[in-house]
């Protein structure tokens, strides 16, 4: 009951946040000198009548406040509007969201499944050879810019021919068997996942190590050792549960970044995800599409934090009071 009330309260807090985010972004986009019809205007075979028709269709002939009102009205009714090329925004986002989710889940899964154990190992074996090696690898991972690393891997793919050059599926994808489809996708995913994995594992591993070291240094761990508990039990039953708390908050933020966090990598690998869609939409000032993605981003951030808070409620008894 208390939990439910807490969740409801959090959800109500979201509404003013969304209003503020939408107002700021709408006006910034609209006041920038980007004209969604610029390309049409420079096409000699497009007549004045077509341009006027497009202006009316996109509502560009109305004052900016009215435009915002129209947008907000339809957003509340659940209608995300149409893009500047006349397609439904909801359809466009749906087309891409699934691809981005696949990529994001692969990356998150991989980083957490390897990052946490590696963090624990380097904390437990502090200052050993393996700790040093992990530290060097983490520094390399943090230092390499994702954009540059992605390009290097692409060149690698072209030179060796071991991996496809960007994309998510081969051109004959729809003719493949189910197993063929899965391996084809996996084959395409290796490189982008490698880039994002390298970037995010470094941070996670270091964070886990630092937390773990803190906890291992605490009194209750010393007490447990003194009590003669096995090292295994100390680490996994007592230390880990406490060390992982800050990482759960991190997970909340990671959830928000799921749909939009990898735009640069997506762009280099020509990955058909949301990040690339939004990047292109911003360039063209495709207002409905940009607004929809910003709203999704904000909502995801809020939901992510909410989930993290709830998880914390479960793992950390101190917060429950």
């Amino acid at each position, binding site marked *: 009951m208390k939990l439910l009330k807490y969740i409801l309260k959090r959800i109500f807090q979201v509404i003013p946040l969304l209003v503020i985010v939408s107002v700021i972004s709408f006006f910034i986009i609209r006041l920038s000198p980007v004209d969604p019809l610029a390309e049409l205007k420079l096409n000699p*075979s497009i007549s004045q009548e077509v341009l006027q028709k497009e202006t009316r*269709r996109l509502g560009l002939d109305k004052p900016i406040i009215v435009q915002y009102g129209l947008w907000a009205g339809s957003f509340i009714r659940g209608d995300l509007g149409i893009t500047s090329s006349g*397609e439904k925004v909801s359809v466009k986002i749906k087309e891409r969201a699934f691809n981005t989710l696949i990529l994001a889940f692969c990356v998150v899964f991989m980083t957490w499944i390897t990052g946490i154990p590696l963090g624990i190992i380097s904390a437990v074996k502090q200052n050993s050879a393996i700790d040093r090696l992990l530290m060097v690898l983490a520094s390399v991972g943090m230092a390499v810019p994702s954009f540059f690393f992605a390009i290097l891997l692409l060149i690698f793919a072209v030179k060796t021919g071991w991996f496809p*050059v960007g994309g998510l599926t081969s051109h004959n994808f729809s003719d493949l068997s189910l197993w063929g489809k899965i391996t084809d996708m996996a084959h395409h995913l290796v490189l982008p996942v490698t880039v994002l994995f390298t970037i995010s594992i470094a941070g996670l591993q270091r964070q886990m190590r630092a937390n773990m070291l803190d906890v291992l240094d605490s009194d209750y761990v010393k007490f447990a050792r003194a009590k003669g508990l096995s090292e295994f039990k100390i680490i996994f039953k007592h230390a880990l549960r406490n060390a992982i708390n800050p990482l759960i908050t991190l997970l909340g933020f990671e959830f928000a970044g799921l749909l939009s966090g990898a735009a640069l990598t997506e762009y280099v690998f020509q990955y*058909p995800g949301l990040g690339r869609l939004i990047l292109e939409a911003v360039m063209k000032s495709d207002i409905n599409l940009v607004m929809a993605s910003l709203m999704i981003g904000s909502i995801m951030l809020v939901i992510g934090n909410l989930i993290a808070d709830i998880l914390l409620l479960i793992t950390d008894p101190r917060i429950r009071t």
Partner: protein
Amino acid sequence: MKRILYFIFILLLIFIFGKSCIKADIPESNTFSSANAEAEQEIDYPKSPRNITINNIDYLQSQAPCGNYGGELISSIIGEGPKTFNPFTATDATSSEMGSIMYDGLFTTNAVTGNIVPKLAKSYEIKGNDYIITLRHGIKWSDGVPITAEDVLFTWNDIVFAGLGNTSVRDMLIINGKLPTLTKLDDYTVKFTLPTQFAPFLRQLTLPIAPKHYFTQKPDWDKNFDTFLSTTTKPEEIVSSGAFRLKEYVAAQRVVFKKNPNYYEINLKRQRLPYLEKLVFLIVGDFNNEILKFEGGELDVIGLKGGTVALYKGKEAKSDYKIYNLGPDTGTMFAAINMNTRKNKDGKFYVDPVKQRWFNDRNFRAAIDYATDRNNMVINVAQGIGIPLFTAESLNSIYLNKNLKGHSKDINLAESYLKKSGFYKDSNGILHDKYGNTVEFNLYTNAGNTEREAVCVMLKQDLEELGMKVNFKPLEFNSLVNKLTNSYDWDLMVMGLTGSPLEPHSGKNVWYSTGSLHLFNQRPAGKPATDKLNFEKELDDIFDIASLKVNFAERKKYYDRYQEIIYNEKPLIYLYSPIRISAIRRKFGNLFPSSLMGLTYNIEEIFVKNTEETK
């Protein structure tokens, strides 16, 4: 000790990684010179397809050599991919291209001569202002429904003349405020009646024909026309007439077409075309990615630019692709001069009156023209893959005025033009007009277009030789367009426009004094031009009269004159045309590249050779 070992280990890692990425430099001897670019390949074009009637069905028979069935061709589109599959609502090049693959028009363009040749239509006859068009008997849409006069009537009367979708074709055909009328004579014959002679008309009939039974299956189809055949339409339900029909569209990844079993073109052995089983377009974000995909073997054909041409030409002999020269680009690049002398709503001049005097002085414009070193631009910016341009029509236009030979840079002549108008250089070499004002103005182009930026830098240097002070200001594309079409507050601008090598009248928005893209002297939309310059008047008349001349030779005289006017008056100073170079895998047969239509326009005739033939 341990530390040093780690250090060496890491250095080794970095070295190995770096080594795998470094590629050996291309030797100097492989550099592509401009001489190579101009050498035309000898291509043995087959005869134009002809009509043949078998069992009461009027087929079109391709005269190209017979090939093998099967295989696929993988091409690419740069950008976001098609926005619609409806050829009547498409406003961008990619969507139009996709539409034209699925839908044939009544006529098409002969790739060699540029003449209009029948496609869906069997033949045509012109009687005065009447165009009588006979359709083929017995040909079918991809779902088996016959293609008849009803479909033609529907396309022109209910879509085009009714003003649905992209109305550019309709707007072009409004002659003296009237539209042509279309009537049905029988199930396979229709008649267009024009209010008066209008030369560009026949070429407009290359517009695709829509299947009436498919487009009108929903009762309020005309209200939802803009969203009809959107990219979310199920591919299997789309009814089409072209050589290929849609198989699948995957957003941001690819468009796949499969052969249309009912296509009405046959080969010399009387088997149905097309040969290819599938036609794939991969959607790639930019040119670099396209190159990588071609290198990786995922693409069969690619358009090459600047430096990459040299790279590919060098490797051509040892590779599995062949490079074709498709001739000059159909677009034009120019430096426009703002000759606007009007005031805006607040009573302020769009262009500073001091500058107005310069820009409206023909001698000043001529000086800019003669000071411009086009050859240098071709060599340095286009890397030799280009030809200097002096005419308003592109170099492969069938209406190109070949008498306008152009000129090379002549700084003395340019200075003498300036002297004629009283310009003088002071002791510091800075140019002043006869009232003593320093000649200083801004040069704009769209930021991010590296080619145009480089051209601007060279143009600036050329003009500084004359003592002009040029401030080069690259602007974001949208702001630039706003300057051109709205605020008119610019001086000199390097821009490009797409053009049609077949129909000068499609440039009317640029050349009519009230045109919406009359860049050099733009007037606000909807206002009559009361202050036309003399040459603007003549241009207006030329475009009016030339559009009424149906005879090609007669018509060309007028368009020759219009190019001559632009050449003499120089409101736009044309710079150069890049040459289009394409590479395609050798395994494809029946390639007849043409400067007018490109490389894969005859997609129904292209086939995959057997492996022995490739070698």
